[in-house]
Protein backbone atom coordinates (compact mmCIF):
# COMPACT_ATOMS: atom_id res chain seq x y z
CA UNK A 1 0.00 0.00 0.00
CA UNK A 2 1.24 3.46 -0.88
CA UNK A 3 2.24 5.69 2.01
CA UNK A 4 1.31 9.37 2.06
CA UNK A 5 3.15 10.16 5.30
CA UNK A 6 6.10 8.34 6.84
CA UNK A 7 7.36 9.16 10.31
CA UNK A 8 10.79 7.67 10.87
CA UNK A 9 12.31 7.24 14.35
CA UNK A 10 11.15 10.64 15.48
CA UNK A 11 12.33 11.91 18.84
CA UNK A 12 11.33 15.35 20.03
CA UNK A 13 11.77 17.44 23.17
CA UNK A 14 10.17 20.79 23.84
CA UNK A 15 12.81 23.40 24.61
CA UNK A 16 13.64 23.33 28.31
CA UNK A 17 12.05 19.93 28.91
CA UNK A 18 14.32 17.14 30.09
CA UNK A 19 12.46 14.04 28.99
CA UNK A 20 11.58 13.89 25.31
CA UNK A 21 7.87 14.21 24.50
CA UNK A 22 8.19 11.80 21.56
CA UNK A 23 10.55 8.86 21.77
CA UNK A 24 11.55 7.05 18.60
CA UNK A 25 8.11 7.12 17.00
CA UNK A 26 7.77 5.48 13.57
CA UNK A 27 4.53 5.46 11.67
CA UNK A 28 3.30 4.91 8.13
CA UNK A 29 0.09 6.57 7.04
CA UNK A 30 -1.49 4.89 4.04
CA UNK A 31 -3.05 6.85 1.23
CA UNK A 32 -6.83 7.14 1.62
CA UNK A 33 -7.11 5.51 5.03
CA UNK A 34 -8.80 6.73 8.20
CA UNK A 35 -6.25 6.50 10.97
CA UNK A 36 -7.24 7.16 14.56
CA UNK A 37 -4.70 8.09 17.19
CA UNK A 38 -5.73 7.41 20.78
CA UNK A 39 -3.90 7.80 24.07
CA UNK A 40 -4.07 9.31 27.51
CA UNK A 41 -3.76 13.08 28.13
CA UNK A 42 -0.16 14.15 27.66
CA UNK A 43 0.84 11.01 25.77
CA UNK A 44 2.12 13.14 22.89
CA UNK A 45 -0.73 12.92 20.37
CA UNK A 46 -0.89 16.62 19.59
CA UNK A 47 2.87 16.82 19.46
CA UNK A 48 2.90 14.00 16.93
CA UNK A 49 0.17 15.76 14.92
CA UNK A 50 2.22 18.95 14.78
CA UNK A 51 5.11 16.92 13.39
CA UNK A 52 2.98 15.90 10.42
CA UNK A 53 2.67 19.40 8.92
CA UNK A 54 5.95 20.77 10.15
CA UNK A 55 4.58 22.99 12.93
CA UNK A 56 7.20 21.17 14.99
CA UNK A 57 10.33 19.63 13.57
CA UNK A 58 11.84 16.40 14.89
CA UNK A 59 14.97 16.63 17.05
CA UNK A 60 15.96 13.27 15.59
CA UNK A 61 14.48 11.29 12.73
CA UNK A 62 12.43 12.59 9.82
CA UNK A 63 8.88 13.13 8.66
CA UNK A 64 8.07 12.80 4.96
CA UNK A 65 4.85 13.83 3.29
CA UNK A 66 4.57 12.46 -0.22
CA UNK A 67 7.98 13.35 -1.71
CA UNK A 68 8.52 16.28 0.67
CA UNK A 69 10.38 16.46 3.97
CA UNK A 70 9.10 18.70 6.77
CA UNK A 71 12.60 19.66 7.84
CA UNK A 72 13.52 21.25 4.48
CA UNK A 73 12.73 24.98 4.22
CA UNK A 74 11.99 24.52 0.51
CA UNK A 75 9.39 21.84 1.19
CA UNK A 76 7.62 23.15 4.23
CA UNK A 77 4.95 25.21 2.42
CA UNK A 78 4.01 22.35 0.15
CA UNK A 79 3.79 20.11 3.25
CA UNK A 80 1.44 22.61 4.93
CA UNK A 81 -0.71 22.75 1.81
CA UNK A 82 -0.93 18.95 1.55
CA UNK A 83 -1.59 18.32 5.24
CA UNK A 84 -4.45 20.43 6.57
CA UNK A 85 -5.13 20.58 10.27
CA UNK A 86 -8.33 21.16 12.23
CA UNK A 87 -7.78 22.11 15.86
CA UNK A 88 -9.89 21.65 18.93
CA UNK A 89 -11.29 25.10 19.55
CA UNK A 90 -13.58 26.22 16.69
CA UNK A 91 -13.21 29.90 17.57
CA UNK A 92 -9.45 30.09 17.79
CA UNK A 93 -8.80 28.96 14.24
CA UNK A 94 -11.31 31.20 12.50
CA UNK A 95 -9.20 34.01 11.08
CA UNK A 96 -11.49 35.81 8.65
CA UNK A 97 -14.30 38.21 9.43
CA UNK A 98 -16.73 36.09 7.41
CA UNK A 99 -16.98 32.53 6.14
CA UNK A 100 -15.62 33.35 2.70
CA UNK A 101 -12.81 35.49 4.11
CA UNK A 102 -11.81 32.64 6.37
CA UNK A 103 -11.76 30.06 3.60
CA UNK A 104 -9.75 32.53 1.53
CA UNK A 105 -7.10 32.96 4.23
CA UNK A 106 -5.11 29.85 3.29
CA UNK A 107 -5.44 30.55 -0.43
CA UNK A 108 -4.19 34.10 0.06
CA UNK A 109 -1.18 32.74 1.91
CA UNK A 110 -0.37 30.42 -0.97
CA UNK A 111 -0.71 33.25 -3.48
CA UNK A 112 -3.64 31.78 -5.41
CA UNK A 113 -4.94 34.33 -7.97
CA UNK A 114 -8.25 35.96 -7.11
CA UNK A 115 -10.43 34.38 -9.84
CA UNK A 116 -9.20 30.92 -8.96
CA UNK A 117 -9.77 31.73 -5.29
CA UNK A 118 -13.43 32.59 -5.81
CA UNK A 119 -13.94 29.37 -7.76
CA UNK A 120 -12.28 27.23 -5.12
CA UNK A 121 -14.16 28.90 -2.25
CA UNK A 122 -17.53 28.26 -3.86
CA UNK A 123 -16.61 24.69 -4.63
CA UNK A 124 -15.20 23.78 -1.22
CA UNK A 125 -17.95 25.49 0.75
CA UNK A 126 -20.44 23.30 -1.10
CA UNK A 127 -18.49 20.17 -0.24
CA UNK A 128 -19.03 20.81 3.47
CA UNK A 129 -22.63 21.94 2.99
CA UNK A 130 -22.08 25.53 4.10
CA UNK A 131 -22.88 27.31 0.83
CA UNK A 132 -25.78 29.20 2.40
CA UNK A 133 -23.46 30.83 4.94
CA UNK A 134 -20.78 32.44 2.72
CA UNK A 135 -21.25 35.93 4.12
CA UNK A 136 -22.03 34.96 7.72
CA UNK A 137 -19.78 36.18 10.50
CA UNK A 138 -18.18 33.64 12.87
CA UNK A 139 -20.23 34.59 15.93
CA UNK A 140 -23.39 33.75 14.03
CA UNK A 141 -22.25 30.14 13.47
CA UNK A 142 -22.43 27.07 15.71
CA UNK A 143 -19.27 25.24 16.73
CA UNK A 144 -19.93 22.44 14.24
CA UNK A 145 -20.44 24.95 11.44
CA UNK A 146 -17.19 26.70 12.29
CA UNK A 147 -15.35 23.39 12.16
CA UNK A 148 -16.90 22.69 8.76
CA UNK A 149 -15.70 26.08 7.57
CA UNK A 150 -12.23 25.15 8.82
CA UNK A 151 -12.47 21.95 6.76
CA UNK A 152 -13.61 23.93 3.72
CA UNK A 153 -10.59 26.19 4.16
CA UNK A 154 -8.37 23.13 4.02
CA UNK A 155 -10.23 21.58 1.07
CA UNK A 156 -9.73 24.77 -0.93
CA UNK A 157 -5.98 24.15 -0.68
CA UNK A 158 -6.43 20.78 -2.44
CA UNK A 159 -4.91 18.72 0.39
CA UNK A 160 -4.09 15.01 0.54
CA UNK A 161 -4.44 14.64 4.29
CA UNK A 162 -6.70 16.17 6.93
CA UNK A 163 -5.52 15.93 10.53
CA UNK A 164 -8.23 16.38 13.16
CA UNK A 165 -6.77 17.11 16.59
CA UNK A 166 -9.76 16.48 18.85
CA UNK A 167 -11.71 18.60 16.40
CA UNK A 168 -15.08 17.44 17.74
CA UNK A 169 -14.36 17.42 21.47
CA UNK A 170 -15.79 20.89 22.09
CA UNK A 171 -18.94 20.29 20.05
CA UNK A 172 -22.42 19.20 21.07
CA UNK A 173 -23.56 15.76 19.79
CA UNK A 174 -25.22 17.24 16.70
CA UNK A 175 -22.15 19.27 15.79
CA UNK A 176 -19.99 16.21 16.32
CA UNK A 177 -22.08 14.14 13.91
CA UNK A 178 -22.10 16.96 11.34
CA UNK A 179 -18.33 17.20 11.35
CA UNK A 180 -17.59 13.46 11.41
CA UNK A 181 -20.09 12.78 8.62
CA UNK A 182 -18.57 15.55 6.51
CA UNK A 183 -15.08 14.16 6.95
CA UNK A 184 -16.23 10.58 6.42
CA UNK A 185 -17.76 11.53 3.09
CA UNK A 186 -14.54 13.24 2.00
CA UNK A 187 -12.61 10.16 3.05
CA UNK A 188 -14.87 7.67 1.27
CA UNK A 189 -15.79 9.61 -1.87
CA UNK A 190 -12.67 11.65 -2.54
CA UNK A 191 -10.05 9.43 -0.99
CA UNK A 192 -8.69 12.12 1.30
CA UNK A 193 -6.57 10.56 4.02
CA UNK A 194 -7.85 11.30 7.53
CA UNK A 195 -5.81 11.22 10.71
CA UNK A 196 -8.07 11.70 13.68
CA UNK A 197 -6.84 12.23 17.22
CA UNK A 198 -9.72 11.41 19.48
CA UNK A 199 -10.84 10.42 22.95
CA UNK A 200 -14.05 9.06 21.46
CA UNK A 201 -13.52 5.30 21.32
CA UNK A 202 -16.65 4.71 19.27
CA UNK A 203 -15.17 6.94 16.60
CA UNK A 204 -11.83 5.13 16.80
CA UNK A 205 -13.67 1.82 16.39
CA UNK A 206 -14.88 2.82 12.96
CA UNK A 207 -11.39 3.77 11.79
CA UNK A 208 -9.41 1.68 9.31
CA UNK A 209 -6.48 1.56 11.69
CA UNK A 210 -5.73 2.71 15.21
CA UNK A 211 -2.48 3.90 16.76
CA UNK A 212 -2.15 3.86 20.55
CA UNK A 213 0.21 6.42 22.08
CA UNK A 214 1.63 5.97 25.54
CA UNK A 215 4.08 8.32 27.23
CA UNK A 216 5.56 9.58 23.99
CA UNK A 217 5.88 6.17 22.42
CA UNK A 218 3.78 4.25 19.98
CA UNK A 219 2.37 1.45 22.13
CA UNK A 220 0.45 -0.35 19.39
CA UNK A 221 -0.85 -0.05 15.87
CA UNK A 222 -3.45 -2.15 14.10
CA UNK A 223 -7.05 -2.62 13.05
CA UNK A 224 -9.57 -1.63 15.75
CA UNK A 225 -10.87 -5.21 16.14
CA UNK A 226 -7.39 -6.27 17.30
CA UNK A 227 -6.44 -3.24 19.32
CA UNK A 228 -9.63 -3.06 21.35
CA UNK A 229 -9.46 -6.73 22.31
CA UNK A 230 -6.14 -6.15 24.08
CA UNK A 231 -7.37 -5.16 27.51
CA UNK A 232 -3.94 -5.08 29.13
CA UNK A 233 -2.58 -2.78 26.45
CA UNK A 234 -5.51 -0.38 26.73
CA UNK A 235 -5.33 -0.38 30.50
CA UNK A 236 -1.61 0.37 30.53
CA UNK A 237 -2.13 3.20 28.06
CA UNK A 238 -4.77 4.66 30.38
CA UNK A 239 -7.65 4.04 28.00
CA UNK A 240 -11.16 2.89 28.69
CA UNK A 241 -12.84 0.01 26.88
CA UNK A 242 -15.49 0.77 24.28
CA UNK A 243 -19.01 0.77 25.73
CA UNK A 244 -20.33 -2.23 23.75
CA UNK A 245 -17.36 -4.30 24.82
CA UNK A 246 -17.92 -3.46 28.47
CA UNK A 247 -21.61 -4.16 28.13
CA UNK A 248 -21.10 -7.55 26.48
CA UNK A 249 -18.68 -8.56 29.18
CA UNK A 250 -21.03 -7.49 31.92
CA UNK A 251 -23.83 -9.43 30.22
CA UNK A 252 -21.69 -12.54 29.92
CA UNK A 253 -20.79 -12.16 33.55
CA UNK A 254 -24.49 -12.20 34.35
CA UNK A 255 -24.91 -15.43 32.43
CA UNK A 256 -26.22 -14.10 29.13
CA UNK A 257 -25.00 -16.51 26.48
CA UNK A 258 -22.98 -14.43 24.06
CA UNK A 259 -20.36 -16.10 21.87
CA UNK A 260 -17.85 -13.35 22.40
CA UNK A 261 -17.53 -9.73 23.44
CA UNK A 262 -18.74 -7.41 20.74
CA UNK A 263 -16.96 -4.22 19.77
CA UNK A 264 -19.72 -2.24 18.15
CA UNK A 265 -23.23 -1.52 19.21
CA UNK A 266 -24.58 -2.95 15.99
CA UNK A 267 -22.87 -6.31 16.41
CA UNK A 268 -24.01 -6.51 20.01
CA UNK A 269 -27.61 -5.68 19.14
CA UNK A 270 -27.55 -8.26 16.37
CA UNK A 271 -26.32 -10.93 18.76
CA UNK A 272 -28.77 -9.94 21.47
CA UNK A 273 -32.01 -9.96 19.53
CA UNK A 274 -31.35 -13.47 18.29
CA UNK A 275 -31.13 -14.74 21.86
CA UNK A 276 -34.75 -14.40 22.86
Amino acid at each position, binding site marked *: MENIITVKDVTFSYPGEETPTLKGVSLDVHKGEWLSIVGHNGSGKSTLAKMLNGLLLPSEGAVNVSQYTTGLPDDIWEVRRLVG*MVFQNPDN*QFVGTSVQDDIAFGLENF*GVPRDEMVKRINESVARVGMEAFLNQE*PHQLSGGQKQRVAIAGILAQKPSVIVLDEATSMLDPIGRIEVIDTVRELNKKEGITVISITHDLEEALSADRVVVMKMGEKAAEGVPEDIFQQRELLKSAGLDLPFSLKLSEALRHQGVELDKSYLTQEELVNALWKLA
Partner: protein
Amino acid sequence: MLQNVIIGQYYPASSPLHRMDSRSKLIAAFFYLFIVFLANNWVTYGVLIAFTVVTISLSKVPFRFLYKGLKPILLLVVFTMLLHIFLTKEGDLLYKAGFLEIYEGGVIQGIFIALRLLLLVMMTSLLTLTTTPIDITDGLEHLLGPLKKWRLPVHEFALMMSISLRFIPTLLQETEKIMKAQMARGADFTSGPIKERAKAFVPLLVPLFVSSFKRAEELALAMEARGYRGGEGRTRLRALEWHQRDTFALILLALLTLSLFLLRN
Protein backbone atom coordinates in the same frame (compact mmCIF):
# COMPACT_ATOMS: atom_id res chain seq x y z
CA MET B 1 -25.53 45.63 21.34
CA LEU B 2 -23.19 43.09 19.76
CA GLN B 3 -24.14 44.18 16.29
CA ASN B 4 -23.36 47.75 17.20
CA VAL B 5 -19.80 47.13 18.22
CA ILE B 6 -18.83 45.01 15.25
CA ILE B 7 -19.93 47.30 12.50
CA GLY B 8 -18.94 50.40 14.43
CA GLN B 9 -21.33 53.12 13.41
CA TYR B 10 -21.78 51.80 9.89
CA TYR B 11 -25.22 52.63 8.53
CA PRO B 12 -26.10 50.06 5.88
CA ALA B 13 -27.72 51.63 2.86
CA SER B 14 -27.28 51.76 -0.87
CA SER B 15 -26.10 55.22 -1.82
CA PRO B 16 -23.49 56.63 -4.18
CA LEU B 17 -21.33 57.25 -1.11
CA HIS B 18 -21.68 53.69 0.13
CA ARG B 19 -20.70 52.42 -3.29
CA MET B 20 -17.56 54.52 -3.43
CA ASP B 21 -14.19 52.85 -3.01
CA SER B 22 -12.95 53.13 0.55
CA ARG B 23 -9.66 54.56 -0.74
CA SER B 24 -11.29 57.53 -2.42
CA LYS B 25 -13.39 58.16 0.67
CA LEU B 26 -10.32 58.06 2.89
CA ILE B 27 -8.42 60.42 0.62
CA ALA B 28 -11.39 62.76 0.42
CA ALA B 29 -11.97 62.81 4.18
CA PHE B 30 -8.28 63.44 4.81
CA PHE B 31 -8.21 66.23 2.25
CA TYR B 32 -11.34 67.76 3.69
CA LEU B 33 -9.61 68.10 7.07
CA PHE B 34 -7.30 70.63 5.47
CA ILE B 35 -9.54 72.58 3.15
CA VAL B 36 -11.97 73.36 5.94
CA PHE B 37 -9.32 75.75 7.18
CA LEU B 38 -9.39 77.68 3.90
CA ALA B 39 -12.81 79.11 4.64
CA ASN B 40 -12.61 82.52 6.25
CA ASN B 41 -15.65 84.51 5.18
CA TRP B 42 -19.38 84.07 4.75
CA VAL B 43 -19.14 83.09 1.09
CA THR B 44 -16.52 80.39 1.59
CA TYR B 45 -18.35 78.98 4.61
CA GLY B 46 -21.52 79.04 2.54
CA VAL B 47 -19.83 77.02 -0.20
CA LEU B 48 -18.47 74.51 2.31
CA ILE B 49 -21.83 74.12 4.01
CA ALA B 50 -23.58 73.62 0.69
CA PHE B 51 -21.03 70.98 -0.33
CA THR B 52 -21.34 69.17 2.99
CA VAL B 53 -25.13 69.24 3.02
CA VAL B 54 -25.30 67.87 -0.52
CA THR B 55 -22.83 65.09 0.37
CA ILE B 56 -24.82 64.15 3.46
CA SER B 57 -28.09 64.01 1.57
CA LEU B 58 -26.43 61.88 -1.12
CA SER B 59 -25.33 59.40 1.55
CA LYS B 60 -28.93 58.64 2.61
CA VAL B 61 -27.76 58.57 6.22
CA PRO B 62 -30.57 59.99 8.40
CA PHE B 63 -29.50 63.10 10.26
CA ARG B 64 -30.10 61.58 13.68
CA PHE B 65 -27.20 59.16 13.05
CA LEU B 66 -24.91 62.08 12.30
CA TYR B 67 -26.25 63.85 15.34
CA LYS B 68 -25.20 60.85 17.48
CA GLY B 69 -21.64 61.44 16.37
CA LEU B 70 -21.95 65.17 17.01
CA LYS B 71 -23.38 64.93 20.50
CA PRO B 72 -20.12 64.30 22.35
CA ILE B 73 -18.49 67.38 20.86
CA LEU B 74 -21.41 69.79 21.09
CA LEU B 75 -20.19 71.02 24.47
CA LEU B 76 -16.76 71.69 23.02
CA VAL B 77 -18.32 73.57 20.12
CA VAL B 78 -20.40 75.79 22.39
CA PHE B 79 -17.44 76.39 24.69
CA THR B 80 -15.05 77.48 21.93
CA MET B 81 -17.77 79.61 20.42
CA LEU B 82 -18.34 81.47 23.69
CA LEU B 83 -14.60 81.82 24.20
CA HIS B 84 -14.29 83.59 20.87
CA ILE B 85 -17.35 85.71 21.43
CA PHE B 86 -16.04 87.03 24.73
CA LEU B 87 -12.35 87.28 23.96
CA THR B 88 -12.11 88.60 20.42
CA LYS B 89 -12.17 92.38 20.41
CA GLU B 90 -12.61 93.40 16.77
CA GLY B 91 -15.18 95.38 14.87
CA ASP B 92 -18.08 97.32 16.40
CA LEU B 93 -18.98 97.04 20.02
CA LEU B 94 -22.36 95.33 20.15
CA TYR B 95 -23.03 94.98 23.83
CA LYS B 96 -21.46 96.13 27.08
CA ALA B 97 -22.37 95.19 30.63
CA GLY B 98 -19.74 95.90 33.25
CA PHE B 99 -16.50 94.30 32.19
CA LEU B 100 -18.34 92.15 29.62
CA GLU B 101 -17.87 93.44 26.09
CA ILE B 102 -19.07 91.72 22.99
CA TYR B 103 -17.77 92.82 19.62
CA GLU B 104 -19.15 92.05 16.18
CA GLY B 105 -15.87 90.38 15.15
CA GLY B 106 -16.08 88.07 18.15
CA VAL B 107 -19.55 86.89 17.26
CA ILE B 108 -18.53 86.23 13.69
CA GLN B 109 -15.35 84.42 14.74
CA GLY B 110 -17.32 82.31 17.23
CA ILE B 111 -19.81 81.26 14.59
CA PHE B 112 -17.04 80.44 12.10
CA ILE B 113 -15.11 78.27 14.55
CA ALA B 114 -18.25 76.41 15.58
CA LEU B 115 -19.15 75.81 11.95
CA ARG B 116 -15.66 74.58 11.20
CA LEU B 117 -15.76 72.02 14.00
CA LEU B 118 -19.24 70.83 13.09
CA LEU B 119 -18.34 70.43 9.42
CA LEU B 120 -15.18 68.49 10.26
CA VAL B 121 -16.88 66.06 12.58
CA MET B 122 -19.82 65.55 10.25
CA MET B 123 -17.62 64.71 7.28
CA THR B 124 -15.41 62.29 9.18
CA SER B 125 -18.45 60.58 10.73
CA LEU B 126 -19.85 60.30 7.25
CA LEU B 127 -16.79 58.22 6.34
CA THR B 128 -17.39 55.69 9.10
CA LEU B 129 -21.15 55.79 8.57
CA THR B 130 -20.87 54.78 4.93
CA THR B 131 -17.87 52.42 5.11
CA THR B 132 -17.54 49.18 7.11
CA PRO B 133 -14.51 48.97 9.42
CA ILE B 134 -13.10 46.12 7.38
CA ASP B 135 -13.33 48.19 4.20
CA ILE B 136 -11.60 51.07 5.94
CA THR B 137 -8.85 48.66 7.00
CA ASP B 138 -8.46 47.39 3.43
CA GLY B 139 -8.39 50.91 2.07
CA LEU B 140 -5.76 51.98 4.58
CA GLU B 141 -3.63 48.95 3.76
CA HIS B 142 -3.69 49.83 0.08
CA LEU B 143 -3.10 53.53 0.56
CA LEU B 144 -0.25 53.03 3.00
CA GLY B 145 1.20 50.18 0.89
CA PRO B 146 4.07 52.28 -0.50
CA LEU B 147 5.32 52.84 3.07
CA LYS B 148 6.29 49.16 3.19
CA LYS B 149 9.44 50.21 1.37
CA TRP B 150 10.54 51.97 4.55
CA ARG B 151 9.84 48.81 6.52
CA LEU B 152 6.61 50.10 7.98
CA PRO B 153 4.58 46.99 8.94
CA VAL B 154 1.51 48.04 6.95
CA HIS B 155 0.31 44.52 6.18
CA GLU B 156 0.78 43.36 9.77
CA PHE B 157 -1.09 46.39 11.04
CA ALA B 158 -4.02 45.72 8.71
CA LEU B 159 -4.10 42.04 9.65
CA MET B 160 -4.06 43.00 13.31
CA MET B 161 -7.00 45.33 12.75
CA SER B 162 -9.04 42.72 10.91
CA ILE B 163 -8.33 40.02 13.49
CA SER B 164 -9.34 42.45 16.24
CA LEU B 165 -12.57 43.17 14.41
CA ARG B 166 -13.19 39.45 14.03
CA PHE B 167 -12.60 38.75 17.73
CA ILE B 168 -14.56 41.62 19.27
CA PRO B 169 -17.87 39.73 19.27
CA THR B 170 -16.17 36.55 20.49
CA LEU B 171 -14.59 38.36 23.41
CA LEU B 172 -17.83 40.14 24.22
CA GLN B 173 -19.64 36.82 24.36
CA GLU B 174 -16.93 35.49 26.60
CA THR B 175 -17.08 38.54 28.88
CA GLU B 176 -20.77 38.01 29.28
CA LYS B 177 -20.22 34.34 30.13
CA ILE B 178 -17.54 35.06 32.75
CA MET B 179 -19.66 37.85 34.18
CA LYS B 180 -22.56 35.47 34.66
CA ALA B 181 -20.27 32.87 36.19
CA GLN B 182 -18.91 35.41 38.68
CA MET B 183 -22.38 36.73 39.43
CA ALA B 184 -23.46 33.17 40.19
CA ARG B 185 -20.67 33.15 42.76
CA GLY B 186 -22.00 36.34 44.30
CA ALA B 187 -20.02 39.03 42.49
CA ASP B 188 -21.84 42.33 42.19
CA PHE B 189 -20.99 44.48 39.18
CA THR B 190 -23.85 46.94 39.35
CA SER B 191 -24.12 48.44 42.81
CA GLY B 192 -21.98 49.74 45.62
CA PRO B 193 -19.36 52.50 45.66
CA ILE B 194 -17.15 52.95 42.62
CA LYS B 195 -14.13 51.49 44.39
CA GLU B 196 -15.98 48.28 45.20
CA ARG B 197 -17.34 48.04 41.68
CA ALA B 198 -13.90 48.48 40.18
CA LYS B 199 -12.64 45.73 42.45
CA ALA B 200 -15.42 43.44 41.27
CA PHE B 201 -14.06 43.74 37.74
CA VAL B 202 -10.72 42.17 38.61
CA PRO B 203 -12.09 38.60 38.70
CA LEU B 204 -13.67 39.41 35.33
CA LEU B 205 -10.56 40.79 33.66
CA VAL B 206 -8.09 38.18 34.85
CA PRO B 207 -9.80 35.16 33.24
CA LEU B 208 -10.48 37.25 30.15
CA PHE B 209 -6.80 38.11 29.86
CA VAL B 210 -5.67 34.54 30.39
CA SER B 211 -8.05 33.20 27.78
CA SER B 212 -7.11 35.92 25.30
CA PHE B 213 -3.48 34.92 25.49
CA LYS B 214 -4.43 31.29 24.96
CA ARG B 215 -6.58 32.31 22.00
CA ALA B 216 -3.75 34.34 20.51
CA GLU B 217 -1.35 31.44 20.81
CA GLU B 218 -3.77 28.96 19.24
CA LEU B 219 -4.71 31.39 16.48
CA ALA B 220 -1.06 31.95 15.62
CA LEU B 221 -0.58 28.20 15.35
CA ALA B 222 -3.66 27.78 13.19
CA MET B 223 -2.50 30.59 10.90
CA GLU B 224 0.89 28.99 10.55
CA ALA B 225 -0.70 25.63 9.80
CA ARG B 226 -2.57 27.33 6.96
CA GLY B 227 0.61 28.54 5.37
CA TYR B 228 0.79 32.08 6.73
CA ARG B 229 4.26 33.57 6.24
CA GLY B 230 3.79 37.33 6.30
CA GLY B 231 2.54 39.69 3.64
CA GLU B 232 4.98 38.87 0.90
CA GLY B 233 3.60 37.00 -2.10
CA ARG B 234 0.12 37.07 -0.64
CA THR B 235 -2.91 37.52 -2.88
CA ARG B 236 -6.19 39.01 -1.71
CA LEU B 237 -9.80 37.95 -1.93
CA ARG B 238 -11.15 41.36 -1.03
CA ALA B 239 -10.65 43.45 -4.11
CA LEU B 240 -11.01 47.21 -4.04
CA GLU B 241 -12.43 48.59 -7.23
CA TRP B 242 -11.78 52.13 -8.29
CA HIS B 243 -14.66 53.39 -10.43
CA GLN B 244 -15.26 56.50 -12.41
CA ARG B 245 -17.36 57.88 -9.58
CA ASP B 246 -14.29 57.79 -7.34
CA THR B 247 -12.25 59.86 -9.77
CA PHE B 248 -15.24 62.14 -10.22
CA ALA B 249 -15.58 62.66 -6.45
CA LEU B 250 -11.93 63.63 -6.14
CA ILE B 251 -12.24 66.06 -9.07
CA LEU B 252 -15.24 67.65 -7.36
CA LEU B 253 -13.18 68.03 -4.23
CA ALA B 254 -10.40 69.67 -6.20
CA LEU B 255 -12.92 72.11 -7.71
CA LEU B 256 -14.21 72.88 -4.23
CA THR B 257 -10.68 73.63 -3.10
CA LEU B 258 -10.10 75.90 -6.09
CA SER B 259 -13.28 77.86 -5.45
CA LEU B 260 -12.36 78.23 -1.78
CA PHE B 261 -9.02 79.67 -2.82
CA LEU B 262 -10.68 82.12 -5.18
CA LEU B 263 -13.41 83.22 -2.82
CA ARG B 264 -11.51 83.55 0.44
CA ASN B 265 -10.22 86.91 1.69
